[in-house]
């Protein structure tokens, strides 16, 4: 827990200064680092005590593809929230479209190799694989 002086001295609310609101380009983490941290926007990142975010790693090809999908989907989602408030920011729109396209491609690659993640997947055409793989809460890497 923070005490009140920490809030003031460590600039707890520094991120509420309008550096993002002047339409300066926000300082972004890479999709990998942003996903580890849970925050793509370096100017908004706020750690807790001395805890460090987990550096997520994959143990095999399937996990690696899934992790890459998770990173790009997260990065696109972060830019989605930003663009909700700044739809006129064409630089961020271009980056959003880059991450969104890569996430969609990674999703198709993953579903093609390992089975559907959505019930609208093309991978359901020959047999109903929706029930085949584990459900997300059942452990393993997702």
């Amino acid at each position, binding site marked *: 827990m923070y005490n009140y002086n920490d809030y003031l001295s460590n600039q707890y609310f520094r991120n509420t200064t309008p550096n993002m609101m002047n339409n300066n380009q926000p300082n972004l983490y890479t999709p990998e680092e942003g996903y580890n941290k*849970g925050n793509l926007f370096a100017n908004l990142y706020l750690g807790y005590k001395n805890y460090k975010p*987990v550096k997520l790693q994959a143990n095999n090809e399937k996990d690696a593809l899934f992790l890459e999908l998770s990173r790009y989907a997260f990065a696109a*989602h972060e830019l*989605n929230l930003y663009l909700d408030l700044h739809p006129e920011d064409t630089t961020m729109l271009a980056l959003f479209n880059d991450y969104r396209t890569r996430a969609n491609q990674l999703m198709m690659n993953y579903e093609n190799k390992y089975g559907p993640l959505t019930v609208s997947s093309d991978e359901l055409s020959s047999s109903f694989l929706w029930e085949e793989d584990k459900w997300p809460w059942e452990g393993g890497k*997702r």
Partner: protein
Amino acid sequence: MWAYQKRLQYPINIKNKDLRMAKLLVTQYGGSNGELAAALRYLNQRYTMPDNKGKALLTDIGTEELAHIEMISTMVYQLMKDATIEEIKAAGLDPHYAEHNKALYPTDANGVPFTVTYFATTGDPLADISEDMAAEQKARAVYENLIDLTDDPDVLGPLLWLRQREVVHFNRFKELFEYYQGKMKNPTNMDASTQLKSTSMKNNNIMDSISDGLSNMNQFLNNFNTKM
């Protein structure tokens, strides 16, 4: 409508059962500052936002909160699933077992069931978004309390990650609040970046912002629609 993706937003793979932590963690599912309250709060407030920025942000953050419900539920499930009856009794979870066996159920850490009175909708964008900002701060604080109560890295990782999402959401809601507040101050000037800059410089005190915003509500209501 919504479409389900068969994946967690962030990976959860808890190897060691921990009933004490399951009992505490469930509050971020069904407690007053939990993810279920957050999702319902934003997804109910979005209909009466005055413009598309507010409708979009509340829809998208509300949707993300549904994914966070799944993460917290997954953690509670994995922490409980291998428990014996004796362990459940020893952890004080026998009342939960009596009602629900090992099924998920939204309660706080004391077992009090979720209630919709945990959140409000007022139809007033400044009032609603102020509540949203407070909700994100309270959820961040509760995640910090929970982080203080465990040393299992499989639990800490997702808790740190979810806590950081509260930080991001708070800042987005604050931006939206200041954007609407700026519009109410000077509805004829529609340059959002100018509005936000001047608002932020004039009003570092949020209570001043709320007060100023409310005093301009009538002007806002009279001018808003024609200026969008």
